[in-house]
């Protein structure tokens, strides 16, 4: 046998072929020949390696160096560097997506390291077209044992003992199935292999057939021996040409070797195998339909009984096993049931192969022990969700299955647990979905699939899925009605209960599953005509507008920028947003995360463009609105929620008085957000515009201190409570009350009120500060501290990607020299002389997943360490301070210190007279969230008044007509977002000037041109 210096295992699976592995092979062959290396290096075309997203994949042995995304152009360099100079080519090696660490060898890559290969043990190692390579890795040894040493009963017992269950999805014990067929009388019996893999996103079987076809053949011979069959069929979909080719080669070679056909291994046992190509009907994966199809008829399921073990193919006893099931058999026989069932859970033994697809970094094929958690598969093996999006759910079992949502990431995947969660194991398709998944749309998609693939035989499936699809489509398109959900549930129940075959019986599963976990999103579609995931296009003009809590008409103002009509753009913004310049700076811009442009290159810089308008448009003169209504309204808290409500109510003709505890209005925007992010004058201009409508703002007036709650109740007809959340949460560690320990918001507020004092050094954090937390307040506090010249360390107990703060804020903080320690939690504050001297922390390690879908930090025993600091800012969260609300006021406050909202209302408190909104209802949220709360309250208060008076609902005066220009570029070229010019880093440290400098007109127009104008129907 010829010996080579090195083996190059090039993946020849369908995925890698599609990404060009054959061209790479050709280039490699030529290059090796050119360099006279053909005798030293051997190229082996293997089956699928599983890591399909990174294909073409190449593994070089003996070192096991793995290259990814190899292209023919890379070959000369690769040969030169690796095969001649012996230096692995780094740029083609794997980089861990989160840490960006380069990992050269296969077994170290988490994708591979966390897998347990049994079914796929030969993948990427052997040439599937050479039977010798299979045999060299114990191939056909299990079969030999079964045929020469075991009776059929013993074979069945071994499989029974192994606990192997059908990998096609239903999980019926394989040994039991064989036992029934073996006990069934008949001179002719059939063994059948179900390779009609049809779930969207599933490619496990294809991969096994392509990578290790003999494993399936071996399993079939053993099955045949066990039940006494001499003829078998492999029903493989015709869309798998490579699998078919390799199966054919395998059958030919096995027959030639006497491992198939007549007198196998001289034992006298015969088995002929034939391949039957399916014609692409999903239902043909259903066992009776599959058999009907082999019989040459239209693939339609038939009723059971009779069960296939009694009367299957051509009414003869038949056993049908899935590819993966069969691929397990040889090893079970060879190594014994005890070996097999040593891994897995109590009732689900062995491993399961999953086709991991969807919104996950490492799309590919993975094999894990039964009982591996969903989180491990998605985050460790799968590498998490791309583009910083959040995991929302994983669909198991394709259109017959259901979703496992975020809150069940810790679920060990086995047949029972998955079923308990309303999903099914299925054949192993695992589609990962991120926050952009709309469950209604997804249910509609799967229902559409089932409706298309329904064979049309039984009424519940044929007509029922059609009607369910109709209802789902209606909901997705804004025509959902009250009662739709109940009708869906009723139909789902009946269809499951009455359909003829598995296809129909499981078709309602995605609907039931999404209803189980995302009913609120269904309701949002039906009642509010909103798609919270911003997917159902019929419900909105453009995704950005729909994603915006206040529905800002983004495409219009961007189009107006492009046309140079900045005043019109400003007017458009003011229609929905009283604080556009604030939002242009500090908004969390949900709009951008849903921007369609983002699917091409990067989202349009909506936030920056918004700011550009407010920076550059001439401010419009605001005239007072005459008071036309007798009702007087008080607003408590002059933050964005309160002022928005005040403005809306004033426009409607009400007299409004706002009460503000702090010296100036603005709430958290004034006292929480530092001025380098939001300059004071900008904020003041916008608040002045609101005041100009005729609204009185009484500052330095705390309700309950400066004016009594009762007095306000008497003086005003309606009161809007919007006091915000201005109290930091406690860390609950020892020493927390010591001098030098600040709450995050308290620190920021104090700084913003007493800026001079701080700047002069009359107030100080010392020279070193630890900021605890990972949210925006923590970053704000850290960056303010940094500007005060303090050495800042942020301590965060989770990973960086888990930080709630805006990514750009974190980067800016680092940029400014702030240290961030991850996986660290405070244990106690160490004091000296009653003042902070240090903080003792503990290292954390990631544990299981919490309800937010992030790894729960778990303390590492004995990892305590102490940082010497002069002060500590604890910015781990805020709560409202609602102590001003008397207990007998009828306004109820819940255990998280938020206002309760009356049932059926979005803003009315439990008292008819009081409405509430902003952070004091929602918990700490965004500015735009508070604005939306203000709008809501104004509408609700006005409506309450009019209802009470028996008046017609408010009709807004007609808006000024603003023509929105339509200019669309015919060709869209990839072009990233325009950069925001920033203040130089050295300048930043010493002052509180605004860091982001704003777009120039030219940049803004260019950026505006990137808008794809999804709002326009052409």
């Amino acid at each position, binding site marked *: 046998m010829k010996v080579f210096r090195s083996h190059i295992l090039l993946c020849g699976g369908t995925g890698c072929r599609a990404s060009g592995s054959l061209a790479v092979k050709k280039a490699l062959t030529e290059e090796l020949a050119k360099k006279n290396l053909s005798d030293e290096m051997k190229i082996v075309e293997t089956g699928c390696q599983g890591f399909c997203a990174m294909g073409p994949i190449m593994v070089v042995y003996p070192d096991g160096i793995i290259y990814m995304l190899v292209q023919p152009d890379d070959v000369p360099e690769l040969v030169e560097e690796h095969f001649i100079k012996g230096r692995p080519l780094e740029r083609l090696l794997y980089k861990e997506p989160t840490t960006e660490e380069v990992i050269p060898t296969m077994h170290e890559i988490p994708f591979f390291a966390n897998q347990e290969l049994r079914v796929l043990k030969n993948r990427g190692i052997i040439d599937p077209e050479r039977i010798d390579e299979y045999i060299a890795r114990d191939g056909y040894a299990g079969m030999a044992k079964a045929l020469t040493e075991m009776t059929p009963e013993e074979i069945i017992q071994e499989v029974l003992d192994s606990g192997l269950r059908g990998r096609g999805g239903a999980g019926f014990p394989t040994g039991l199935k064989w036992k029934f067929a073996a006990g069934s009388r008949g001179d002719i019996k059939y063994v059948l292999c179900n390779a009609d893999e049809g779930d969207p996103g599933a490619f496990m079987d294809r991969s096994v057939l392509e990578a290790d076809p003999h494993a399936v053949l071996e399993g079939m011979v053993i099955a045949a021996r066990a039940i006494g069959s001499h003829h078998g069929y492999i029903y493989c979909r015709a869309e798998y040409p490579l699998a078919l080719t390799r199966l054919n080669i395998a059958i030919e070679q096995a027959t030639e070797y006497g491992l198939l056909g007549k007198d196998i291994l001289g034992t006298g046992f015969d088995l002929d195998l034939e391949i039957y190509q399916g014609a692409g009907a999903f239902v043909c994966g259903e066992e009776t339909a599959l058999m009907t199809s082999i019989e040459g008829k239209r693939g339609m399921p038939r009723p059971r*009984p009779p069960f296939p073990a009694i009367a299957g193919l051509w009414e003869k006893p038949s056993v049908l096993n899935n590819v993966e099931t069969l691929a397990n058999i040889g090893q079970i026989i060879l190594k014994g049931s005890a070996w097999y069932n040593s891994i897995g859970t109590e009732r689900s033994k062995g491993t399961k192969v999953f086709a991991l697809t969807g919104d996950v970094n490492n799309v590919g094929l993975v094999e894990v022990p039964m009982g591996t958690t969903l989180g491990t598969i998605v985050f460790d093996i799968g590498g998490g969700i791309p583009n910083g999006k959040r995991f929302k759910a994983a669909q198991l079992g394709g259109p017959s299955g259901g979703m496992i949502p975020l809150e069940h990431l810790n679920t060990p995947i086995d047949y029972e647990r998955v079923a308990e969660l309303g999903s099914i194991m299925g054949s192993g398709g695992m589609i990962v979905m991120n926050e952009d998944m709309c469950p209604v749309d997804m249910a509609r998609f799967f229902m559409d699939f089932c409706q298309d693939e329904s064979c049309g*035989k039984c009424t519940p499936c044929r*007509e029922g899925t059609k009607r369910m699809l109709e209802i789902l489509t209606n909901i997705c398109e804004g025509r959902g009605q009250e009662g739709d959900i109940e009708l869906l549930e009723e139909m789902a129940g009946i269809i499951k209960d009455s359909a003829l075959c598995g296809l129909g019986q499981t078709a309602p599963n995605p609907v039931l599953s999404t209803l189980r976990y995302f009913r609120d999103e269904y309701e949002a579609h039906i009642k509010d005509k909103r798609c919270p995931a911003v997917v159902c296009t019929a419900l909105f003009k453009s995704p950005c507008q729909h994603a915006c809590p206040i529905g800002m008409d983004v495409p219009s103002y961007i189009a107006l920028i492009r046309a140079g009509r900045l005043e019109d753009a400003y007017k458009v913004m003011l229609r929905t947003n009283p604080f556009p310049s604030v939002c242009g700076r500090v908004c969390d811009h949900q709009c951008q995360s849903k921007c369609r442009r983002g699917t091409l290159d990067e989202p349009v810089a909506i936030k920056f463009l918004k700011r550009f308008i407010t920076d550059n448009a001439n401010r419009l003169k605001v005239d007072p609105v005459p008071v036309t209504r007798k009702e007087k309204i008080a607003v408590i808290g002059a933050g964005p929620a309160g002022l928005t409500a005040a403005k809306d109510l004033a426009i409607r003709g009400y007299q409004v008085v706002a009460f503000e505890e702090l010296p100036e209005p603005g709430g958290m925007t004034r006292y929480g957000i530092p001025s380098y992010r939001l300059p004071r004058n900008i904020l003041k201009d916008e608040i002045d515009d609101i005041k100009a409508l005729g609204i009185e703002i009484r500052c330095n007036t705390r309700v309950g201190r400066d004016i009594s709650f009762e007095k306000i109740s008497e003086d005003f007809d309606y009161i809007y409570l919007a006091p915000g959340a201005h109290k930091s949460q406690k860390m609950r560690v020892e020493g927390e009350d010591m001098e030098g320990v600040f709450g995050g918001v308290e620190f920021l507020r104090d700084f913003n009120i007493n800026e001079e004092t701080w700047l002069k050094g009359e107030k100080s954090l010392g020279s070193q500060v630890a900021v605890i937390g990972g949210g925006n307040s923590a970053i704000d506090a850290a960056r303010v501290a940094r500007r005060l010249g303090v050495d800042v360390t942020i301590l965060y107990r989770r990973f960086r990607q888990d930080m709630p703060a805006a990514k750009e804020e974190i980067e800016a903080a680092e940029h400014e020299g702030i240290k961030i320690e991850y996986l660290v939690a405070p244990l106690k504050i160490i004091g000296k002389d009653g003042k902070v001297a240090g903080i003792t922390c503990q290292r954390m390690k990631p544990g299981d997943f919490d309800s937010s879908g992030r790894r729960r930090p778990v303390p590492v025993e004995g990892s305590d360490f102490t940082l010497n600091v002069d002060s500590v800012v604890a910015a781990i969260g805020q709560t409202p301070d609602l102590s001003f609300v008397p207990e007998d006021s009828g306004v109820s406050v819940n255990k998280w210190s938020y206002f309760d909202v009356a049932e059926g209302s979005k803003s009315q408190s439990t008292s008819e007279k009081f409405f509430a909104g902003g952070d004091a209802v929602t918990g700490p949220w965004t500015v735009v969230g508070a604005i939306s709360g203000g709008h809501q309250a104004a509408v609700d208060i006005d409506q309450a008044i009019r209802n009470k008076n028996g008046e017609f609902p408010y009709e807004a005066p007609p808006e000024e007509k603003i023509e929105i220009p339509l200019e669309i570029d015919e060709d869209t070229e990839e072009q990233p977002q325009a950069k925001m010019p920033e203040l130089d880093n050295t300048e930043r440290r010493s002052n509180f000037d605004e860091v982001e400098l704003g777009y120039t007109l030219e940049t803004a127009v260019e950026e505006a041109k990137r808008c794809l104008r999804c709002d326009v129907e052409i």
Partner: protein
Amino acid sequence: MDKNISLTIDGKEVTASPEQTILEVARENGIYIPTLCHYEGTTNPGACRVCVVEVENARSLVASCCMPVSPGMVVKTDTKRVMDARRLVIELLWASGDHNCLKCEKNGNCELQDLIYLMKIDKPRFEIESPGYEIEDANSMIRRDLNKCILCGRCVRVCSEIRGNGVIDFSMRGSQTKIVPAFYNDLIDSECEFCGACVQACPVGALTFKQARFGGRPWEVQKVKTTCPHCGAGCQMELWINKDRIGAVYGIEDDNTENRGQLCVKGRFGLDFVHSEERLTKPLIKKNGGFKEASWDEALDLVASNFKKIKEKHGSDALGGIASSKSTNEDVYLFQKFIRVCLGTNNVDFCTRFCHTPSAVALSRAFGGGAMTNSMRLSEKADVILISGLNLTEMCPVPGALTKHLVTFDNLKLIVVDPRRIKIIDNAEVWLSPKIGTDVAWTNGMMNVIINEDLYDHDFVERRTEKFDELKEVVSRYNPQKVKEITGIPKEKIIEAARLYAKAGRASILYGMGETQHIYGTDNVSALCNLALLTGNMGKEGTGVNTIAKQNNGQGAGDMGCLPPIYPGGQQVSNPEINKKFEKAWGTKLSMKPGITESDMVITKGKVKGLYVVGGNPMRSGPNLNNIEETMEDMDFIVVQDMFLTETAKVADVVLPACSFAEKDGTFTNTARFIQRVRKVIDPVGESKSDWEILCELSRKMGYEWNYSHPKEIMDEIASLTPPYGGVSYDRLENGGIRWPCPNNDHPGTPYLWKEKFNTASGKGVFFPADYNPPAELPDEEYPFIFSTVKELCHLHTGSYTRYSKALAELSPDDLLGVNPSDAEKLGITDGDDVKVSSRRGEIMIGVKISDRIPEGTVFSTFHSSKIPVNVLTIDALDKLAKTPELKICAVKVEPV
């Protein structure tokens, strides 16, 4: 079926047998479960799901139609869960299509409508959406409105499972699913045979009778049960009559019928000949070479006077009568009585002379009676059926379909012998394709193998046969090699067929005119009789030698004595005692001299001077037509009694308009001896009359006074004189047919013949071995092709009435010459070309149909059309015993034109 398990349905303890379904048991016990896709006689697909029930411990609801019962099962059919599911299914079906009853032919007879009403559903919760399909009715028979289709699949199953055709199937998927013929054609462009079984099976208005459209709603029509007038199968049908017109036609789904609900295109759609504009409505008298309408009196007077004149001048035997296999028993009985009594001669015959008489001769001499020994129904008990010279699916389509069904679903095996690859060969285990005219040889060959391999039934041969040694001696000369030389059938095939037939527990033989229309037709049938006797396949269910008569009453006309040597019931005219019996009964002196056959009358010139033809058409059905024309023109006086002006009627002196089967009462006896009622459904067309009425009037004019007021009285007379019909009366026939022999009122009829003994002198079956002899005329250089006449699905006989059916004419307008592709190539002809075909006797012009079902060197043609006198080609060489012409073989040449 042992009812050995017990279960509970709706709290009621019931017993059942394990092979029963929940549905069957529930129905037996009076518990209603609705169904839609369930259709008796087909597999249960469990598709519609309206029959779902709750079974304790079952994971989900189960379809009761396909769930077998099991001991201790607890079934609930009326829980809320069940009702909710049913209701949803009905709502979904309702909303799925254009179920608008206002203009639906099924209104009042629709199973979906029934269920909606029963379940009290006001309206579906879903928007009613018609798929918007075009109506498919490019044919004149079946209207397919798939907007009303509920996809129960009954039509698909009845087509594939019962009819064995599989013309339609589901296509597309999901809610687009649609039932279509191949390539989405209209049925007329598919392989559809238009048996209409799908229409009958359809529970809703998706498939309806186009001919019956707007022809009366279910509650407006009169529904009459009668017997199909077309082929010899004797299918029972229910005609829907409105305003004297036949509308929808349903097969009667009763186990005591031969057809059990099935019909063929002729019965289903081919009854419209009754309403043809071309029906004769008045008697016609020929004057100056043309016909003039006349009154009945005038015409009958002329007939009577001419018959009297000839009788006086040339004697009674110068007169003759040819009866029809289509008339009722009562009509043909009276006809032979008329010939024998009023004309005084036994010169009475019927059209079977040209087709099946060799059967009568051979069966009679072997067994003692010339009828089908078993029945089509009894073929169900056979393990093997040998079909020879019989295009079963076209000749006798309903039994053909049921046979195919048994092959598919019941392990029946077929041996088919036919030079053409006829359709049933697709279902055959063995196909023997002999050269035409070599039947004795292959049959002897099979017996040679059976005897050599000792596969014959020693016991049966010993106990129940005679002349075995003679048989043995003759067949010993026919080893497979020799047979191959004569017949062209490979040796192995002969051996395979012989073994299959001989080893079968029960083997039946069905044969047709491929065996009989030869100069050695009698030998051919005898050979088959020998085969059956040799293997003991006689005298039990599922066996026998079964001749398939092509016409509806071919058997009855023979039974009724329309044969020159015999009275009704096979009683010899030459037997003095018999003669005396009839003379007494009929009150007149009768001739003891056996009469002459139809062949003698129309082929040999001068044998008769006066001829009375009822319903026959020798001018198209006889051999060597030019000669027959001369013979008939030579006669002094010819009367033809028919529904239409046939070619034979055209040469008559008087034409009498006769009623169709729909306008009279009577009985038909089918090919399997099954006597069934024909009922009057409409009034006679024009002045036409029933044969029996005409004969009564004519008898009066001939000096006899027959006063029958209703055919039932004639049947009473038949019963009194005809032993096998002794127990037959209209009262008994009211509830279904009787299979003769039925000697007395208490006798239940006889399912199969010769159970204990044969009706021969010795009581044993007699072997009549024969050697192979060549046909009368074989191809030569000048006339290189064998020409053979055949029948096809849509027409019968000379098409003398089927071609007046619009539907049948649409499906099969013309006679065509079937030619093998390689012959066609040699001749330089293509499909649809006209060719000249000539024999030593005449020539025709005919269109060509090229088919690989046709063997090389042989051309085939039907003879159903009036336009092409196909039989000018055929030879009038006769079987010496049966006097049946060799219509199956003559030599022709084919020339392109």
